[in-house]
C-alpha cells in the first residue's frame, strides 16, 4: 500500500499518457481531451508541493517523445500552463467544480495556442479551428476527473 501511495501521481500520469496516445478512429480523434494536462492540473491544485512545473516539464518531454514532436515543444507549453495554475492554486481551490472547468478550458486553450505557435515557428503549419475541440472536451471531462482523482487521493491518503 505504501508503494502505491508513493507512486500514485506518477502512475496517474502514466495512465493519462496511455489515454493520450491510444489509437482511436480519426473522427473521434479530433475530440480527444488533454488527458495529461487535466491530471497534472488536478495534482497541482491539490498538492502543489508534490507536482509542480518540474513534473510538468518532465511529462512534456515524455509527450514529445510519444507524439514525435521536436523535443521541448510540449514541455514548454505544459510548463507555462501548469505555472499559471500553480501560481493561483489557493484561489482556484475555492472555486466550484464548474468554475474550475471553465478555468481548465482557458488553460487548455492557452496550451493549444502555445503548441501551435511553437510548431508554427518550426514548420509552416496552418491553423484550423477544429483543433480547438479538445478545449471543450477537456472542460467536459474535468468534473469527472476531479471527483475520481479526489477519491484516489483521499483513499490512498496521498499528501
Amino acid at each position: 500500500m505504501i508503494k502505491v501511495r508513493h507512486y500514485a501521481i506518477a502512475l496517474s500520469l502514466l495512465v493519462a499518457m496511455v489515454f493520450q496516445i491510444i489509437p482511436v478512429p480519426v473522427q473521434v480523434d479530433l475530440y480527444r481531451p488533454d488527458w495529461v494536462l487535466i491530471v497534472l492540473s488536478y495534482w497541482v491544485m491539490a498538492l502543489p508541493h508534490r507536482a509542480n512545473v518540474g513534473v510538468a516539464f518532465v511529462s512534456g518531454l515524455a509527450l514529445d517523445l510519444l507524439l514525435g514532436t521536436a523535443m521541448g515543444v510540449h514541455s514548454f507549453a505544459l510548463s507555462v500552463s501548469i505555472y499559471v495554475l500553480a501560481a493561483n492554486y489557493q484561489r482556484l481551490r475555492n472555486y466550484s467544480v464548474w468554475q474550475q472547468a471553465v478555468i481548465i478550458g482557458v488553460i487548455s486553450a492557452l496550451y493549444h495556442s502555445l503548441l501551435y505557435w511553437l510548431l508554427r515557428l518550426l514548420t509552416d503549419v496552418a491553423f484550423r479551428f477544429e483543433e480547438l475541440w479538445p478545449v471543450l472536451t477537456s472542460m467536459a471531462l474535468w468534473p469527472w476527473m476531479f471527483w475520481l482523482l479526489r477519491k484516489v487521493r483521499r483513499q490512498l491518503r496521498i499528501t
Partner: protein
Amino acid sequence: MDTIFTRGLSLNLRLTLALAMSVMLIVLDYKIDAFSTTRVFLNSLISPVQYLANLPGQLLNVSAQRLTSQQALISENEQLTNHILLLNEQLQRFEVLEKENAELRRLLGAPVRKDMRKLVAELMAVDNTPYSQQIVINKGAIDGVYLGQAVLDERGIVGQVMEVGTTNSRVLLISDVTHSIPVRSIRNNSRFIATGAGVIDELFLTHVPHSTDVEVGDVLVSSGLGEVFPEGYPVAEVTQVLRDESRPFAQVKVVPRAHLNRIKYLLLLWPESAPTEPELGEEGESDD
C-alpha cells in the same frame, strides 16, 4: 508564492528554468539535430507506453478473430482465393514482360532493375498531433530498418522512416507539411514535386508553370530522383488543376493513392542503394 508549502526553488525560478531548458532542447533538436542518435535510446525507453496504449485495440482484434463465424471465414477464404487467382494470372504476364524489359534494357545499355528485399510491417500507433502526420510501425533497428527508408501499402507510397527505435520506428507520411516527394506523370513523364498539405488526403504540386501539360486524373509515380524512394511506385492522382493567371504558378491538388487514414499493413523496401549494415541498429545496441 509565500506559503508554508514553499520548498526549494521559487515558482518563478522553476518556470524560468523549465522554459530555458525547453527552448534549448527545441534549438538542439530542430536546428542542430543533436538528438538523432539518442532518440533511438529514448524511443526504446518510452515504447512500453506505446505497447500499453496499443493493447486494447489488439485485444479487440484478437477477440474479433476468435468470434468470426465459420460462414464469414469461408466466404472470405473464397474471396481471397479468387483474388490470388486473378493476381497470379497478371503475374504470369508480368514475368514475361519483365524478362522482355530486361532484355530491351540490356540492348539499350541501360542498367537492369533488380528485385529488392521486402518486409511486411504492422501499424502500431497513429499520431494525434493535428499538426503532423506520422505513424509508428512495429519494425525497428533489429529488423534492419534504416533512416529514410521508403514505406508502402498495397496501393502506393505511404511515407519514409524518420526515426528508428530498437523494435519500432516512426514513419513520416507523404501528407505531412514538411514532406515532399519527387514524382513523374505516367501520361507524359513530366516531373513534379508533391508536397504534403497537412491534411490526411491531400497533397499539392509545387512550382507548376501554367503551360505544363497536367490534367485531372493523371497518375503520378515516384521518379526516384531524390534517391530516397525507389522509382515507379504510384504516389498520387491529380484531382484539381487551377490555372489562375494572376498567380505565378498553377495550383494542382492531388490525392494520395495509398489510403493514409486506413493503414494496417505496410511494406518496407530495401533498394540497392540502401545501407547494407543498419547503421542505427549498432548504435542502438551500444547505447544499451
